[in-house]
């Protein structure tokens, strides 16, 4: 918050393209993924992306509740994106904010194209995304982890889903904003994609991009999604080759 007052005086990108946390323009933050750490749900995943820390659980397919929500020909997908009161600089009220309600919706719509809902008529598949620490990119990291948790729950999917936010700093398009960059940068564009079928399932933008920057941002997001997809596959492999329960924290 201290940076807010004098953000103008501190460039977010050095002349030779180095960001305040030492990353290069197209470099993602350090990412850690783990699958299956929770025992009383159908599937779970934990992700750290920089200082952003998120835990996701999936319950279902199970009887839809309340019953009138059940659809005859397919499962319904329910999501919840929520931030812990201790996840932010100032304590966040536990009541869902309008922002959390919107993100809950766009995350659901980012996952729905991939989940084969017609295989489980009348049921509900519930995805709960809890942000334990927020340092920008929580919706995209939440989607990446949610797809992992769905996979562990054995829900059939057309494709994986992974997501990353690209942004603009000092006129340059960059990969995976951290919180300082998100607050003082010029644009923030989260993008979720299905990596194999090459389709966008979430697309939002806050900020100012020219057409060329928009196009460059989409391409950079595509590269980020590819990197995350490789990590997702690796995390699932580790889960199924290890007999030891995973450790979610060091």
């Amino acid at each position: 918050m201290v940076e807010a007052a004098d953000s103008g005086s501190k460039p977010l990108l050095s002349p030779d393209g180095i960001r305040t946390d030492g990353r290069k323009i197209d470099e993602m933050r350090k990412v850690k993924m783990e699958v299956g750490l929770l025992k009383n749900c159908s599937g779970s995943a934990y992700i750290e992306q920089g200082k952003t820390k998120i835990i996701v659980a999936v319950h279902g397919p199970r009887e839809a509740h309340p019953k009138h929500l059940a659809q005859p020909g397919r499962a319904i997908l329910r999501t919840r994106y929520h931030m812990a009161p201790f996840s932010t600089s100032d304590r966040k009220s536990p009541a869902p904010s309008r922002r959390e309600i919107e993100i809950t919706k766009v995350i659901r719509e980012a996952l729905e194209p991939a989940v084969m809902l017609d295989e489980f008529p009348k049921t509900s598949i519930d995805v709960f995304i809890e942000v334990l620490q927020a340092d920008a990119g929580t919706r995209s990291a939440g989607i990446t982890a949610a797809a992992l948790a769905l996979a562990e729950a054995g829900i059939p999917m057309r494709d994986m889903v992974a997501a990353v936010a690209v942004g603009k700093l000092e006129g340059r398009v960059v990969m995976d904003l951290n919180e300082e960059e998100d607050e003082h940068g010029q644009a923030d564009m989260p993008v979720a994609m299905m990596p194999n079928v090459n389709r966008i399932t979430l697309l939002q933008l806050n900020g100012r991009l020219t057409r060329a920057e928009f196009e460059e941002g989409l391409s950079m997001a595509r590269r980020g999604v590819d990197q995350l997809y490789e990590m997702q596959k690796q995390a699932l492999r580790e889960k199924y080759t290890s007999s030891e329960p995973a450790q979610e924290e060091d």
Partner: protein
Amino acid sequence: MDSVNSISEAASLRLRDLNAVLATGVREDGRKLDEYRNIDIKTNLYEKADGSAMVRIGNTVAVAGIKIARGAPFPDTPNDGVLTVSLELLPHASPDFEPGPPDEGAIEMSRVVDRGLRESKSIKYNELCIIPGKSVWIIYVDVYALDHDGNLQDAAGLAALAAVLTAKLPEVKIEGDTVTELETKRPIPIVETPVPVTVAKVGDHLLVDPSAAEEEVSSVRVTMTTIESGVVASIQKSGSDSITMEEALKIYDLAFARAKEIRGKLTAALGVSPA
């Protein structure tokens, strides 16, 4: 095949038929695929509001009213005024709308209107500061969806924009910490015209400004808000389907072209343009 996720079987039959029709390049209401409906804009409807506008897009109507009040700035932006957008889908507008607190869809819609105005940075928030860190202007924009024949998102966004463009706030005299509102008024400082345009995907086709019938069979809509220079300031993909990168870029082109036309109508109708 992805597109049947969230639409009913009846709708999916209708979608098959419609897809064939659209292949001819003409929509059910006679429009071309990239054609916007007629737009009608009225302003200054309510004397007690500090600004107001009604926007009609075909048979879709939205109203926006503005109230301006003095209040404290946010701690992290002590020199900036505050913009607050709320939106209600009035039960008047459709048999499907129930009165009550806004649901997920209405919240998303109001946040997209809000970001369209905010993220473009077209409003000079620092010129809404009265006493740094203590007192700023708070601009409440309340939008009502009044009649729903599709594309409420753009109607709401344009009504909010027209209301902001024609709203007035009092000049003030500041002595120490005492603020006196004068009789003279000035406009809200806005230097660009961020215009939202929504494009729906129906089958394989991109339809500008979807009608209610088109929205029913569409599973993705994208709203892009662009300004004069072509800069896109806000994007929202909504709906349970996916798009390709090529479609994203095509939507940008459609949105920018239509926004340009709408911006012309807006300036003509209001007799104002951003400072």
